[in-house]
């Protein structure tokens, strides 16, 4: 037994040594001589940067044409010519695999951070590093470069992402469904209220079972029911009362929950929660023509431009988001951006790349205003107008709907203490209500009790 242990230890040491050797750089007299020669040659040339590898894991960002164009261009720029860009492919399990890869020490220099919930998760866990010092070294002023989006790059006082863009939701609609139902298209200037939207969805609903056309498509994302509430209250930080406890008893939350429930079970104008769970309906389902309306970010606009992947025989329309009350346009969205993981081997260079990608993203933006404010976006909506000419979607309409300066913006995700838990509790309790296993009062009461218990800890 002792001998065996000794043998195992020896084997471990030997393997360790071999592994160590494989990581050390080769050096030989011949190589050193070559280096001397090349160094003397280089004395007469401008200083050449050491070649480095830059690993980017951007997940779903890669479906954004402006990001792809930015990645293509950055690799042609002289300033980054010493970098070998390794761009990892998008993965359906990005949310799980990426953090594990970082935790296991895999080199990643830039990652995609999709929303404020993930930004909080990654920042609190130490997946991504704060960028303040890196920004100072670069001499970049975030407020100047990113305007109002700079605030959304922070957790507390520290910057954690380089904002890429802030999604802005609009109302998409299928003109064929409206025509068939004999309904007027939504007004492109004056938003309807959520109550009007629900009534309209009911009127657009036709047919039965597999031939059914729904008035609207709502995903399982909680924003689809609580959106009205944060619009009315002013954003994701309004999930908390002044004492820092849950604000879920604010009547607008119950109203929003009930409206969604009625659309599912009374009007039957949206697929039920059960149907969505079982059929695992994706947001792309809107492109199949079976839904009258859908509120979403600009990704639907990108899909509608991609007629090869999403062929359709119906015309698309866009309008301002429904609002809680009044005629002032309102919307919600969230900022996504580039984070630098703790395993970045070149954080300073990664910061430069992230800023440059944000700049180039603005330059190549076609369907969403970029977060970077110091670069023009000459192609914004131009390509969309060209491709969507048959849908009668013009640049003016796109600008008016997506980038109206008068639109009141609310952050769509829960912003505050224990927001990851809050998100989970809301999901668990609301789905019990939507599958008719719990009444509205109990749902609100449970969210309040469970969250207060967590928040006072």
């Amino acid at each position, binding site marked *: 037994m002792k001998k065996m242990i000794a043998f195992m230890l020896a084997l471990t040491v030997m393997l360790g040594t071999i592994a160590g050797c494989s990581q050390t750089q080769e050096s030989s007299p011949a190589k050193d001589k070559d280096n001397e020669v090349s160094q003397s040659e280089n004395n007469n040339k401008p200083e050449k940067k050491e070649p480095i590898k830059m690993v980017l894991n951007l997940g779903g960002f890669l479906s954004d044409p402006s990001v792809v164009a930015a990645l293509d261009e950055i690799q042609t720029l002289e300033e980054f010519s010493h970098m070998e860009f390794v761009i990892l492919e998008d993965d359906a399990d990005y949310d799980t695999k990426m953090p594990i890869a970082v935790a296991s020490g895999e080199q990643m220099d830039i990652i995609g951070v999709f929303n404020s919930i993930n930004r909080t998760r990654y920042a609190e866990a130490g997946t991504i590093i704060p960028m303040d010092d890196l920004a100072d070294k670069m001499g970049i002023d975030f407020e100047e470069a990113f305007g109002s989006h700079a605030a959304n790059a922070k957790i507390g006082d520290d910057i954690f992402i380089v904002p890429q863009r802030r999604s802005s939701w609009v109302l998409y609609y299928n003109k064929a469904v409206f025509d068939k139902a004999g309904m007027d298209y939504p007004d492109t200037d004056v938003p309807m209220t959520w109550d009007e939207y629900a009534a309209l969805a009911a009127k657009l609903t036709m047919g039965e079972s597999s031939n059914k056309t729904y008035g609207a498509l709502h995903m399982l994302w909680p924003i689809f029911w609580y959106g009205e509430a944060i619009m009315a209250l002013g954003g994701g930080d309004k999930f908390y009362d002044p004492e820092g406890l849950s604000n879920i008893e604010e009547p607008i939350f119950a109203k929003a929950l009930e409206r969604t429930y009625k659309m599912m079970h009374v009007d039957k104008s949206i697929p039920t929660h059960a149907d969505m769970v079982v059929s695992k309906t994706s947001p792309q389902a809107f492109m199949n023509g079976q839904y009258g309306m859908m509120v979403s970010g600009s990704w639907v606009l990108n899909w509608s431009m991609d007629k090869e992947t999403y062929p359709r025989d119906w015309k698309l329309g866009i309008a301002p988001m429904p609002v809680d009350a009044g005629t002032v346009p309102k919307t919600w969205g969230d900022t996504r951006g580039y984070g630098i993981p*703790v395993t970045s081997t070149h954080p300073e260079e990664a910061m430069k790349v992230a800023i440059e990608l944000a700049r180039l993203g603005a330059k190549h933006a076609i369907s969403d205003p970029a977060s970077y404010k110091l670069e023009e976006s000459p192609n914004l909506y131009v390509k969309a107008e060209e491709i969507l000419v048959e849908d009668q979607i013009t640049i003016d309409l796109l600008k008016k709907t997506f980038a109206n300066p008068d639109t009141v913006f609310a952050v769509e995700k829960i912003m505050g203490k224990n927001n990851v838990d809050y998100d989970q509790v809301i999901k668990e309790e609301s789905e019990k209500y939507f599958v008719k296993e719990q009444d509205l009062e109990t749902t609100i009461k449970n969210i309040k009790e469970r969250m207060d218990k967590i928040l006072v800890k």
Partner: protein
Amino acid sequence: MVKRNRMKHIKENAVGYSFILPSIIGFGLFMAYPLLHSLFLSVMDWNMFKGLSGSTFVGLENYKAVFENEYFRAAIMNNLKFMVMAVPLLLIISLLLAALLNQKIYGRGMIRAMYFMPYIATITAAAVVFSALFHPEFGPVNGLLKLVGIADPPGWIASVKWALPTVALFWIWKNMGYCVVIFLAGLQGISRSYYEAASIDGANKYQQFRHITVPLVSPTTFFLAVTSVIASFQVFAEINVMTQGGPGTSTVTVVYHIYDTAFKRFIMGYASAVSWVFFFVVICITGLQWLGQKKWVNY
């Protein structure tokens, strides 16, 4: 002579050890080390991104948190319910099917293969098919129930009450093929002479099954009971694909809870503590089964 013998003995040992070395290395690297490492993590507030430098020793705090956590309580209850629902049903159905397939029936090979198919199918594909069958609104199962006069059939995986039984049903359907094959092997080890003797004594088919088959196949039943109980506690992929713990927390199981806290919330220390608590729960249940076998297993 003695020296030569000793050398021979050493050589023989060396050969023996060299044969088991790959297994020992594999076990050490992929089982023993992770096991011990998780024990270490369970007493730490472990930051998986910063390693030891970003982590602190917390003693038994994580274990205390396990017993205070509402998700863990819900998960362990769900696991126990799942075990009680699924394991006996799996064994009973599998034994009955195996007994039927042990007869000389037409197309026996094909039928055996059919029952084995779900076991070798990928969980995701099988779960999608199963979910479609049990779709609360458009599924053929509920369609049939409505036809026979049940106006408000269950919501299956979309119902707090029915989600866990539905997943259990899927799990039974998926694992039945394996249990049937094992039972068949057990049944084929029972001598025909017992049945012939019973038949001469006037025992009918049910009596033969009850008093010969069931007792003599009990070692196989015990083996499958132990492995199925452990497997039922390890249920994860079915939950992850079909329900993701919902609706509410009605299908959160312990392994899913471990996955959620470790890899979605990065709370490694707590997740490791849950793993160890869970390990002891499974050990205790297996121990009880082991003790109980004296009463009903006939070797």
